[in-house]
């Protein structure tokens, strides 16, 4: 092989030498010419081609494996089989069976936005009554952050008398006489905890498993995993009882990274149940159908061109809206209920109220809606104003919700639906054992936010009845037994619906996204019947 003088650019850059091997390869040559071409191969050529060759060899050896690991869609990162949630894109809410045998088919979630005080409703603390008005022990304050409390607050005893109720003898205050009749159907978790002490992030945590925006809500996960039975209604419906929107906003029923078809549909309990669902004046159902057919065709062409799955879900949503025109309007219309039923709920047709929503929730559950989310508002009992004081506004909140919840449980039980409907009641955190005294000597009594302990209850759907899980200390301030994280509650709810919370996941941003997040969650087996 000829030695090149690399300092001589002429030899070094000779295009003839550089091109010759390629040409030889292309044409196919006589042995003599081949030999000559080999003579032209320099060490430089060898080194240049060698690196590419080694690269090719590496890829040849490892690419199949790399591809396998990238495309092993049927296996998760733990190497175990993934659950396949693939559906016909034109029918994204079709029913899929759960992973395990379920004890609940649907969930009615009653979210009391603002966080009701567990110390005035379920978590009875007689010792706190004895210490009412005393300075709060400093150990309660060390290392804690409060939304409003400053300095050394006074302890605040329970504001309402408690008594034991039902055969299970659970403590309950005198504010909930209707719910009290169902106390033997309820399963309390008195040791709920969260790590968020402001409403919006805490609500997001409870509803989406994450305190930040952009995650999928429980209802989205559930409809993604199970679909919904009634294709003429959305699978995930949200009802708000007038008043304020929850602080977390519409993200609370957002679908996050899940396809948007799984997001909650907010319905109104007065006026049109779903805005713009009715055909406009002068447009017949037939005309609407023809219009949709044309729009669908355009959308189909669009999908063919760009392949965006959201286009398919748009077609599906138009179609669902068309079907909903009849069924949703009928379902949401509580005029169809008897006067006795309306009275039992305290519902007044045409009003925006929690009572109406409870009745609608029952009607939706009867028609096979998978996840029904109710929000009530005004539970933020700081005591800074009359409408949110424990001694005033709080009583109204109790009155507004107690009778409808009692009637809902009555109805579900009577209809045998409590057997496969899981009802969940709760706020986003608890309230402090200390009195919040924002305006000095005001007549209003209130408590600040306490993420350290709060109470929720569940009923039906495979949970124990007349049971209490977990315990707080004598002040009701911190958990002393069996703490339950929000993600544990989520895991338990999903388990009732037939899911291993780790398996109900969705690949996004390089992670198998889960309602219960990457943190380990525990199915609270103790509360399951």
């Amino acid at each position, binding site marked *: 092989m000829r030695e090149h003088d690399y300092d001589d650019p002429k030899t070094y850059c000779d295009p003839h030498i550089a091109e010759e091997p390629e040409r030889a390869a292309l044409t196919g040559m006589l042995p003599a010419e081949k030999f000559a071409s080999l003579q032209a191969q320099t060490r430089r050529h060898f080194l240049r081609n060698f690196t590419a060759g080694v690269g090719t060899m590496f890829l040849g050896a490892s690419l199949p494996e790399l591809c396998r690991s990238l495309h092993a869609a049927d296996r998760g990162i733990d190497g175990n089989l*993934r659950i396949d949630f693939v559906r016909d894109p034109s029918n994204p809410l079709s029913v899929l069976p759960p992973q395990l045998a379920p004890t609940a088919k649907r969930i009615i979630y009653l979210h009391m936005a603002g966080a009701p005080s567990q110390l005035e409703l379920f978590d009875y603390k007689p010792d706190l009554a004895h210490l009412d008005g005393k300075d709060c022990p400093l150990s309660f304050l060390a290392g804690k952050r409060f939304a409003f409390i400053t300095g050394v607050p006074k302890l605040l005893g329970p504001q309402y008398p408690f008594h034991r109720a039902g055969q299970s003898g659970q403590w309950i205050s005198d504010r909930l006489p209707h719910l009290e009749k169902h106390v033997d159907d309820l399963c309390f978790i008195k040791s709920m905890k969260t790590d968020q002490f402001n409403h919006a992030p805490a609500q997001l945590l409870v509803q989406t498993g994450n305190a930040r925006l952009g995650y999928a809500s429980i209802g989205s996960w559930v409809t993604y995993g199970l679909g919904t*039975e009634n294709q003429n209604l959305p699978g995930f419906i949200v009802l708000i009882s007038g008043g304020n929107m929850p602080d977390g906003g519409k993200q609370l029923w957002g679908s996050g990274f899940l396809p948007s078809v799984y997001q909650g549909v907010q319905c109104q309990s007065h006026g049109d149940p779903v805005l713009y669902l009715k055909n406009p004046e002068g447009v017949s159902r037939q005309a609407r159908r023809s219009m949709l057919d044309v729009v669908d065709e355009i959308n189909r062409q669009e999908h063919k061109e760009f392949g965006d799955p959201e286009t398919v879900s748009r077609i599906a949503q138009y179609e669902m809206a068309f079907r909903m025109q009849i069924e949703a309007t009928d379902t949401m219309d509580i005029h169809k209920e008897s006067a006795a039923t309306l009275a039992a709920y305290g519902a007044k047709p045409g009003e925006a109220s929690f009572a109406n929503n409870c009745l609608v929730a029952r009607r939706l559950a009867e028609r096979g809606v998978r996840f029904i989310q109710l929000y009530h508002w005004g539970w933020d009992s700081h005591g800074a104003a009359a409408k949110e004081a424990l001694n005033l506004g709080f009583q109204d909140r109790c009155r507004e919700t107690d009778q409808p919840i009692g009637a809902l449980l009555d109805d579900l039980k009577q209809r045998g639906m409590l057997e496969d409907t899981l009802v969940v009641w709760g706020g986003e955190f608890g309230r402090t054992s200390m009195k919040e005294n924002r305006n000095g000597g005001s007549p209003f009594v209130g408590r600040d936010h306490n993420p350290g302990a709060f109470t929720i209850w569940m009923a039906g759907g495979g949970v124990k009845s007349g049971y209490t899980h977990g315990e707080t200390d004598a002040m009701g301030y911190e958990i002393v037994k069996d703490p339950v994280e929000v993600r544990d509650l989520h895991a338990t709810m999903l388990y009732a619906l037939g899911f291993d919370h780790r398996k109900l996941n969705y690949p996004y941003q390089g992670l198998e996204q889960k309602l219960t997040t990457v943190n380990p969650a525990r199915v609270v087996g103790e509360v399951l019947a």
Partner: protein
Amino acid sequence: MEFSLRQLISARRHRLIILVPILALAFLFLASPPDGQERSPWLLFAGKFHLLTIHFPIALLYLVPLLELVGRHKRFPHLRASVEFMLMLGLLASLFAASLGWALARNGGYSGRIVTQHMWGGLLTALACWLCWILRDHAASRRGNIVYWAALATTVALVSWTGYRGGQLTQGENHLTDGMPAALQTLLGISTDDSNATGATTTVAVVARNTFYGAHVEPIFAKNCYSCHGRNKQRGKLRLDSYKAILRGGKHGAVIKAGNIAGSELFHRINLPQTDDNAMPPSDKQRLTPDEIKTIEAWIEAGASETSPLNAVQGAPTNVAAALKEIELPEYDPSIADKSRSTHAADVAALQKRYPDLLQYESRTSAMLSLNASLAGEKFGDRDLASFKPVLEQIRTADFSGTSISDHSSDLIASMKNLRLLRLSHTRVTDDGVKRLHDLAYLQSINLLGTQVTSAMLGTIASMPKMEHLYVANTRITPASANTPTLKQKLIF
């Protein structure tokens, strides 16, 4: 004699000066050995740098023979020129690190065989290194060379052995053998059987595992406490690695008072918040779990006995653990279903096509079915149900609420042998039809809301073996019909 002591002293007198710190250190080791007490936090802090500085002399001392050997080659004669400097530097660095080591051991609550051996090993290494330094000048002669190499070999051996002992102090006694491949272990004849290899158990009396102390308490101490209150360290002069030692207590006296939770310092300390200076285990260590704390509490309350049997301690967390109901989440394996579904999968597929959404498998791994005809409403009648004949036995829950099925379907429903839940609310079924269901051995719940049934069928249905709930609101059955306690419990209005 070429290297007589006299000549050695006269030639390199200044080198003798370096013996002074070596001897001073030896005196320090003898006069104030590590005794398990904790002393000055300043010296302890300085001592922590022992772990950092020690690797410098180690590397230097290993380099010396390497340089000597490679330096013999004709191409690298210059390497040998640096050996003397290396030896001196290694000696000084090892003395410095050794004094830090003493500060750590003396002030950090160390004591025991391993730390003593490590300490003296370090000092001997320094001494051997010094010897090499002296002897190297006389290595020109054959005999001098042999002596020098012997000293060098001793130095390397001492460095290795001392380093291993140090490793045992920081990483645990079996740090080398723990992760060793099994084949190599057998080859070297090393047994990793705990009873032989764990230092703790060789000196501590064998613990009887059939006692509560041995079975539940000792393992907690072993896992959480021995590293500082065991054979090698006795912080606060406390050992917890034997029952006798536990009773003896530490420098503040007894740590456990039998039957007296409040008076037991140990129990007080393990319950302190992690941020408390007196909390045990200290803040950088793993806390005891609530169950472990409960175990110790129950043990102390029951008298903190060494010999009382397993069942003599009340309220121990073995019971607590039983109250926790861990849910087993099986791995997802749809192939389980493939086999059990094979008998009827084709029929199910055909029915699912004909009646979309009505028929579903109960779960992805189950062959059993769930039929919800209520979604079809009145359109679903007796004739439709007849087409489900091939899969009737697989149906576990059936909801016919609001459909137009009648008593004609009773025989079909009666042949759903595995039925657990049946909803017939708002249908045309009557007593006759319902009575024919009496053979459904697994039926737990029947919903007859808003039907024409009367109390005539109650006797038949309520006495079915698994029957729990009968939903009979808006029927001709009244609460007065619930004339027995069992009926009262099962009837829901």
